[in-house]
């Protein structure tokens, strides 16, 4: 099995869900300020989540999984950004209209049809990331598309929703969250599964990001935009990689997931080849062998090892909430007929054992390292091999059987054994629907069973909201241009694409348009100014972003009247960043006057400038004299004028 893939051949399909925080004053459903992040807390609340049965008497798969984890959920509250709404002790206030407007702008720019009446729905999450146990979310637009390479990507829907809490820690049965981010408005842009290669995914993420930035009404900075990437291959199933923080991380993750799905399909075929087709064919037995391994050479099997780890955390009063129920237990899990499956390749560099470990870690809350050990990768400390033989013998493990050893609180080890069996059952079917979390090295790990559409039902706390066509028209009329139109317009005057993208991403585009429209400035020159020149100045520490719109307008108006000033742009902008009055800045730089008699200035410079070396050739003399002249004249007279006067004068003298 190889790690390089023909994406077309395997039928790779990728779709995106791009989350973008909106630049509003307040949160979506309460009056707390948005964007206030804190790192301490004034109060804490302990909660638990229970799933609700469906009318069929069944638990939704994800809910059931979360319920099995029996997690204690703690929320840390800070009074500056949290009210009783975040604590789920007060119903929602009327939805933030500013957020709806921005969502509509996004929809319009992406060519979506705006729904007539916005209905808020509840999307259940039982991991505790939202204290109510559900996220309030509503569709605002449907059926758009954007130009992408030589084709278009479909936009299925755009919704407005509230952001979730920030995870602080997740140890054992205790998960701790901060509520500062909770409730901040987000828009979620969902594309169709139209992307075909990992590289396209990165590009599409950046493209949609530029659309968001183009509205001018989104938050920037760390965490302000996150994307979820949905990946499937032919014969596989949709897997969601949740929370890809940067576009550059996407290609490795998508490739890794494609490899994983292809390998899991091969594992399915292998299992079928062994005659294992249905759940009943998977025989996994488990046994408490704690006493059998009480004197083990393997550290993990000794109770004292486990207890000392607990003791070190005992100082924290909350650490009790981390513990599972029961005494220390070592459990042997025998996988009948499943030898050589633990080492089956899945992601690049990882095996099927990693898949099992993900389930055990998340659902049984066994987060020690390693999660478990198994006979295909047994510790090599002295005596360990003999122990393995004894265990296999005791458990009647044949050559076709595999063995996993788990340790931890008794109840948790039982849960783990059950989840191992369930994951093998899933393996008979190929690729299970999962949500996976990305790791920095480009791999992914199990996070939860993928929620289905069944997790949603109406939020009856809020009435539906009609969106009139007048409102849509009002927003359409003031809509900034979409990025591809700007790319074309700037591109026509020769601006390179990376510069255009920089301008869109960093807000320079807005300033470009501002001064071009109001000061008659040349588009190309202005793009270079904001897109390249200013970049350097910013990098060297000049606070150029503090210059107000009025400041830029004043500056560029001057540029129009006194083109010579453009040569002295660096000094002028540096001055403007410190003191907002353009006249003062120019006066301080001695640039307030016009310099009228250029030829005379040139003549007098030639006569007074102390050059003695006759060895200067014409070119050097010219450059030297230009240097001398410009040091005095920069900003007062355009360089071209000086150069031309100098040439004439020198010519006249020869």
């Amino acid at each position, binding site marked *: 099995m190889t790690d390089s893939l023909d994406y077309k051949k395997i039928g790779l399909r990728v779709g995106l869900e791009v989350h973008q925080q909106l630049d509003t004053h307040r949160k979506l459903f309460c009056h707390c300020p948005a964007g206030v992040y804190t790192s301490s807390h004034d109060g804490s609340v302990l909660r638990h989540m229970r799933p609700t049965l469906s009318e069929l008497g069944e638990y939704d798969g994800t809910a059931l999984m979360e319920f099995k984890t029996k997690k204690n959920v703690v929320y840390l509250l800070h009074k500056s950004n949290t009210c009783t709404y975040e604590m789920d*002790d007060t119903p929602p206030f009327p939805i933030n209209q500013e957020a709806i407007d921005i969502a509509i702008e996004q929809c319009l720019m992406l060519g979506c049809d705006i729904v007539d009446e916005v209905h808020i729905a509840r999307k259940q999450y039982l991991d505790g990331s939202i204290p109510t*146990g559900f996220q309030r979310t509503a569709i605002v637009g449907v059926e758009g598309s954007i130009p992408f390479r030589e084709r278009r990507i479909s936009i299925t829907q755009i919704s407005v929703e509230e952001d979730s809490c920030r995870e602080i820690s997740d140890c054992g049965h205790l998960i701790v969250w901060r509520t500062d981010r909770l409730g901040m408005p987000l828009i979620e842009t969902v594309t169709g599964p139209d992307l075909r290669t990992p590289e396209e995914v990165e590009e599409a993420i950046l493209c949609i990001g530029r659309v968001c930035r183009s509205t001018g009404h989104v938050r920037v900075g760390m965490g302000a935009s996150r994307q979820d990437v949905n990946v499937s291959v032919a014969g596989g199933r949709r897997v969601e990689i949740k929370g890809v923080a940067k576009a550059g991380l996407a290609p490795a993750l998508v490739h890794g997931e494609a490899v994983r799905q292809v390998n899991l399909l091969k594992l399915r075929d292998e299992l079928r080849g062994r005659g294992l087709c249905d759940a009943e064919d998977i025989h996994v037995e488990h046994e408490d062998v704690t006493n059998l391994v009480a004197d083990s050479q393997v550290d993990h099997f000794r109770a004292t090892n486990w207890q000392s780890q607990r003791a070190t955390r005992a100082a924290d009063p909350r650490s009790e909430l981390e513990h599972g129920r029961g005494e220390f237990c070592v459990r042997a899990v025998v996988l009948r007929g499943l030898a050589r499956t633990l080492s089956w390749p899945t992601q690049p560099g990882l095996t099927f054992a990693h898949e099992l470990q993900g389930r055990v870690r998340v659902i049984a809350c066994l987060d020690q390292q390693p999660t478990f050990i198994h006979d295909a990768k047994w510790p090599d400390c002295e005596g360990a091999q003999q122990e393995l033989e004894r265990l296999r013998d005791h458990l009647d493990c044949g050559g076709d059987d595999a063995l996993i050893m788990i340790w931890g609180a008794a109840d948790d080890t039982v849960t783990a054994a059950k989840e191992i069996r369930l994951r093998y059952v899933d393996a008979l079917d190929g690729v299970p629907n999962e949500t996976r979390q990305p790791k920095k090295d480009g791999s992914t790990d199990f996070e939860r069973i993928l929620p289905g559409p069944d997790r949603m039902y109406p939020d009856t706390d809020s009435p539906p909201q009609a969106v009139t066509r007048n409102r849509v028209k009002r927003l359409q009329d003031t809509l900034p241009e979409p990025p591809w139109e700007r790319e074309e317009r700037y591109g026509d005057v020769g601006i390179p694409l990376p510069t255009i993208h920089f301008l869109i991403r960093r807000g320079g585009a807005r300033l470009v348009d501002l001064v071009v429209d109001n000061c008659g400035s040349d588009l190309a020159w202005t793009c270079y100014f904001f897109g390249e020149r200013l970049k350097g100045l910013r990098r060297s520490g000049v606070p150029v972003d503090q210059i107000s719109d009025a400041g830029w307008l004043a500056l560029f108006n001057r540029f129009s009247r006194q083109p010579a000033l453009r040569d002295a742009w660096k000094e002028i902008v540096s001055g403007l960043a410190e003191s907002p009055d353009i006249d003062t800045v120019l006066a301080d730089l001695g640039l307030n006057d016009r310099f009228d008699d250029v030829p005379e200035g040139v003549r007098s410079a030639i006569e007074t400038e102390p050059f003695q070396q006759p060895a200067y050739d014409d070119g050097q003399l010219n450059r030297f004299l230009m240097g001398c002249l410009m040091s005095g004249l920069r900003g007062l007279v355009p360089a071209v004028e000086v150069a031309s006067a100098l040439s004439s004068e020198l010519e006249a003298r020869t």
Partner: protein
Amino acid sequence: MSDAKDPLKGYRGHARSRLERWGMRVWGDVRVRNTAGSTFEGVILPRGETFDDLHLVLKLKTGYNVGIHVDRIESIEELGFKEAVYKIPEKAFPVTPDLPNVTLLGTGGTIASRLDYRTGAVIPAFTPGELYGAVPELAELCNLTTKKIFGVFSENMSWAEYVPLAEAVGEAIDGGADGIVIGHGTDTMGHTASVLSFMVQNSPVPVVIVGSQRSSDRPSSDAALNLIHAVSAAASGDIAEVQICMFGPTSDRYGLLHRGTRCRKMHSSYRSTFRTIGDVPLSVVDRDGFTAINPDYLPRDHSRNVRIDTRHDDRVTILYYYPGMKPDVVDALVEKGYRGIVIAGTGLGHVNKPLFPALKRAIDQGVHVVMTVQTLWGFAQMYVYDTGRDLLDVGVVPLDNMLPETALMKLGWVLGHTHEHDEVMAMMRNPISHEITEREPHNGYLILQGGLPEVDEFITDHWK
């Protein structure tokens, strides 16, 4: 048109006539195309009564709901139809011979529920089998019988509901229940707890009223834990009184059992809203059992016989005094035939001077006027100031530290027994279930002020 038969439930006016013209019906699986060319596929849902008559509501395949303006519909076709049948498949509640028998009486609201994800509807789960499915922990606590007495939001309850409820409690006790649980909306839970304290006396077993602040369809709901605590208190608790069981803090840590006559809803939405006023609660209840707080209660005793007494007169009211109140308000009440007025007075039990003659007129006409305090905590002590003394002279009778809502319930109950003034007042002032107490403990009034450093520090260190 009754709900059961109306194929376009909730749709009216313009939207309805369009849907009728297209031959559409609620629960139909449809494909809609609008004038902008967008396609929507989903189930037509019923329209809420208070929403406009211009939009069609669909639950899309993705799970989201959208509203489509009927004027923007280009085409619509029904692809299938599946009636929404809200019948939950039941598992039988296990019967364990050694466990106590608890009867759960339903008054409305959903202490437990299920979701029909296809339509988004929240379906009440009430029979023992349904409750077992939603809260399986109950089977470890008791054998459960359920009976639905009626189904109203608690703000719509009145004497017409209290009577059958009290009688149902009596029947359940006579039927051998080891404890009674009453599922109830939280708005007027305190009122019901008060009136049942008078209508159901000398009970041999606990009568525990329970509800939830967050609807039970939510993963975060307090319903399940409240129910577990309440059933536990009814099954194996020792307090044979009418009591309310709700959250202690807003965290999932423990519940409190409050005596019915002194318990009030103190916040519109917090889980921790119910508090005992002017005293301490009866007990803490959590998964490990009970921790008694107040040793003064009627203990469980199967040899006692419950007395059910539902006599009442509903011509009673509360007058919430405010400065500038005019006497005509009192005159109007008397004119309309009210026989009992509970005044929620300011301070130690005061109203303004201009009201005195009107109150005297009322009392002379046989209306019984009693005084409680708006501040909720503290005693009506009308002998301290002139105003109070003058009111006593007029014939207004103080009710010490009885809560205004409890006083209303008691006055209505008492007037069902007698209208003889001295008898009425004697009954009012003679506590049946601690609705008047002789002593307020120093920790009966503990409203901590947020913002003070020591208080905020305490809150930071303890679970909210």
